[in-house]
């Protein structure tokens, strides 16, 4: 494959010296707009271990992208870097052109990144509605005194927030369960609630960590529809980590493959499927030859 062909496919071999601009793949409708997220040579070391190294990624404003790789490749670590749960030791994250270097996790969320977790992290002892209301925390504007004295601003903001919470819940067919405790929901519903809560923070980029984990095929199919629906309704970018290849190959426009903390391939589903380094990473060298 010639260099130009590779570039058109968005596929790049492991080579940190290549300038960022040439490596990114974004859907055509987003090409003229500024990217929502740019990771430039992002990396983190824990002691001597380089968990992620020279990670470059650019996401279009309404792109659905996938991050795949074998277990322990560093996918969740990248999510933790993006949301500043870990401080990157190298590189830069630009969110909508803004450097997130000095932001905390909460500030990154307010700047526009919302996420879900691989092992669901809901507020189990609170109701389904309250979980979404907590997501709407920063959308309300009354102060502590306003809340204690129940000034008019409190009632106004609470009413709007409650209606909005119900809208988010309805989107995920959870409105029937609004008053139940989040911990009592079945597994699939908990995953949907976590997405609803993340969306309530009004993000411009949604990070989904294994959203289909533990779901049966029909639930996965519904989830795929939902993810596309979220993108089309809210016009946001979605980056997801997933092991379910049917989901990734069907809905992700761009796919990045990670192995041992390094990006080994980027491109659309077709290119990734045929990439020998990817096949090797998943199946080993022998599998790649066959």
């Amino acid at each position, binding site marked *: 494959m010639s260099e130009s062909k590779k570039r058109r496919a968005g596929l790049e071999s492991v080579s940190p010296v290549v300038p960022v601009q040439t490596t990114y793949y974004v859907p055509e409708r987003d090409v003229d707009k500024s990217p929502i997220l740019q990771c430039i040579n992002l990396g983190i070391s824990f002691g001597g271990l380089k968990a992620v190294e020279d990670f470059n990624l650019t996401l279009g404003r309404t792109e659905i992208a996938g991050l795949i790789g074998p277990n322990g490749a560093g996918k969740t670590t990248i999510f933790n870097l993006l949301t500043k749960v870990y401080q990157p030791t190298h590189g830069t994250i630009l969110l909508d052109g803004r450097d997130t270097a000095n932001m*905390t996790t*909460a500030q990154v969320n307010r700047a526009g990144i919302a996420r879900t977790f691989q092992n669901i992290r*809901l507020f189990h002892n609170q109701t389904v509605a309250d979980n979404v209301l907590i997501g709407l925390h*920063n959308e309300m504007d009354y102060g*502590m005194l*306003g*809340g204690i004295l*129940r000034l008019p601003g409190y009632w106004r903001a609470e009413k709007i927030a*409650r209606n909005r919470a119900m809208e988010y819940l309805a989107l995920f067919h959870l409105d029937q369960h609004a008053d139940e405790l989040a911990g009592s929901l079945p597994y699939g519903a908990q995953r949907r609630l976590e997405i609803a*809560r993340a969306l309530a923070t009004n993000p411009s980029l949604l990070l989904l960590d294994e959203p289909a984990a533990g779901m049966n095929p029909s639930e996965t199919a519904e989830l795929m529809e939902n993810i596309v629906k979220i993108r089309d309704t809210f016009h946001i970018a979605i980056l997801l980590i997933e092991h379910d290849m049917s989901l990734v190959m069907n809905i992700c426009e761009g796919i990045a493959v990670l192995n041992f903390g390094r990006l080994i391939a980027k491109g659309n589903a077709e290119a990734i499927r045929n990439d020998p380094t990817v096949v090797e990473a998943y199946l080993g060298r022998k599998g790649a030859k066959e």
Partner: protein
Amino acid sequence: MNMKRYFKDARADLLTYAGVIIAFLVISALKSNGMLNRSQTGLLVPICCYIVMAVSLNLTVGILGDLSLGHAGFMSVGAFSGVITAMGLMNVIPSAPMRLALAMVVGALCAAIVGFLVGIPVLRLNGDYLAIVTLAFGEIIKELITCLIVGVDSKGLHVIFNVNGSKTANDLTLLDGGRIIIKGAQGATGTKTIATFTAGFILIMITLVIVQNLVRSRHGRAIMAVRDNRIAADSVGIPVTKYKMMAFVTSASLAGAAGALFGLNYSNLAAAKFDFNTSILVLVFVVLGGLGNIWGSIIATVILYILPEALRGFSTYRMLIYAIVLIVVMLTTNNPILKNYFASLRSKFGKSREKEASAS
């Protein structure tokens, strides 16, 4: 549907207010008819103080989910700053209720400031470590107040910090007509007792409004989110430290107000009164009443505060029986079979009520 739950919560809050008001009216009526003896009326103000202490500690332990073992420290800050305020302004403000109100406000403010300063290092910790550090701070506050010698005369307030133990109240060099307010380890002496049951009742109501409305606001939800899952709270844009501090400082300031009322209820009060035991006593009220359960804290405080007095007839075995009652109550309230039984009773009761409501 969501609103229904909301009204249910609001009804629970209103029931708490109603319960406290009714209790106040009944006790006031009994008191004015002379149906309470001296030792019984003497318990009223301390009970009010401890109810406020328990409700405010519930904010830290139940709502925020951080075990604090230094709550009595904030109470003592409020008590002594309140006593200094009330005694220092005796000639300026003749009205006792005004001085009492001002003392409680000053007590709350001082405790809030101390709470903030203590909170800066403490809230960086979690779990057991946090509990032990709050315990240490509680003791530090007690020791610092033990060093305090304060007096007032026509020139104003005189304060000596008696660190090496060599100074006495005479070193204040008060003018004629001056008054010693705090005498080091002896604590506040000769305080005019201006605390009243009505003031205690008002303080309880204010505390309930603050805590219950806070819990049902976005700030309260944020505090509970931090308790339930810190990482998730962070990920939805809630600054964890800010809300921990908000709960901690609110809790400390309410304890300070309760302390001021408590301090002005006794003519003599030493700092040693606010030791580890007092913190634990309040914690027992909170745990027994149920973590996060405001109404439970009130009931548990009333019962457990009266119990040792009611058991005076058993003389030497009094505290033994008290301890056994504590153990039995803790075991039964945590028994899953009994819990389920009460839950089923509650749901039956709730359902029949809802049916009535829909029928009417």
